[in-house]
């Protein structure tokens, strides 16, 4: 089963994304901020990262940049999610190593669509 790490400081957002991804057949783990995400991503090989931008202690940009700097690791694709819709934020996300950028609040079909492009559909 493909494993996705959901990174967001809001519990409800994590639950929402978990519900969407689990019902689409993916396995989900969580982290509340970029630092916890980094600890997890350095230890576990995830297939995809779903990363909020604005989080305390270490934000999404810092997490992703730091993870991408570990050239010895297999790097999972990342979807960055933010409240901001500006071009400057998108650009920053891609520079940090995101593959896609979505604006909050997300919609289930759109999220699944992005994930499927990056991962393929899970086996039935």
């Amino acid at each position: 089963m493909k494993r996705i790490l959901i990174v967001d400081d809001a519990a409800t957002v994590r639950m929402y994304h978990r519900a969407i991804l689990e019902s689409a057949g993916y396995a989900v783990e969580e982290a509340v901020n970029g630092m916890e995400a980094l600890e997890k991503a350095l230890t576990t090989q995830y297939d995809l990262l779903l990363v909020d931008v604005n989080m305390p202690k270490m934000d999404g940009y810092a997490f992703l940049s730091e993870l991408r700097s570990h050239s010895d690791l297999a790097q999972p694709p990342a979807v960055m999610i933010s409240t901001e819709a500006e071009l400057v934020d998108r650009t920053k996300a891609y520079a940090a190593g995101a593959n896609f950028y979505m604006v909050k609040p997300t919609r289930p079909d759109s999220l699944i669509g992005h994930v499927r492009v990056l991962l393929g559909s899970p086996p039935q």
Partner: protein
Amino acid sequence: MTAASISQDDFLKFQEYFYRKTGIRFEDNKRYFVDKRLVERMGHTGSANFREYFSKLRFDTDGVEMQALVNLMTVNETYFFREQYQFDCLVNSILPEIVARKKDNRTIRIWALPSSSGEEAYTIALCLIERWPGIADHDVEIISSDIDTNILALAKAGLYSARSTMHVPESYLRKYFRKTANGFQIDDTLRGAVEFTRVNLQDPTDVRPYRHFDVIFCRNLLIYFDDVSRKQAAETFYDALRPGGFILLGHSESMSRISSLFQVRKFDDAIVYQRPGV
């Protein structure tokens, strides 16, 4: 009197709150474990229901209830070689890295707190003597501290139960311990290797002289602090470490709940934290 009960939603509320605060996540299969302890604390605090208790917990100004709850929810035993993988990390990864960048023959300094009855500090000493080849070429100083002078006295005395020494390899037991009527007595070599001091981590005057450490072990202490005290402790540790120095927390603790001052370092045996700027 009806027994207090914890609904599924109560449990989820608690689970989320506890995870947010400590990083420890209790899954559904821990319901019995969690519910029992919540009910115990509800009784202790005179809370008629979970909502009342949860409100007390969330808004408890001095963090006392959270501390009691964390105490109940976590295993607090101390013994030799507890969370062994961190000692492996010290010997296999941390010390070699320190040595590689050390430009002189200065002493390597390790601070271990809380000392409790000394098992952790003596374990570090044992690992250095027995498992780190570098001990032949480098001086290492181990300081271990606690706020409780009674427990420090125990640590200095170095007398341990069979339970506490359960994970000590047989050969080390023979070499460094003497079996007495009252337990296993640590020999003078080991006792002489650790300096035990009284320190209140939250007192700036107490901690001021604690500087220039290469490694800090602070396992299963910060988890009992409130958010502000933890943050201040992290700042204290930052100053206590040399640039590039390392700090190790308990296995269920994470800097992600405490401070952004440290960098995450993943070694083969463990995740540790490093003060930047080496």
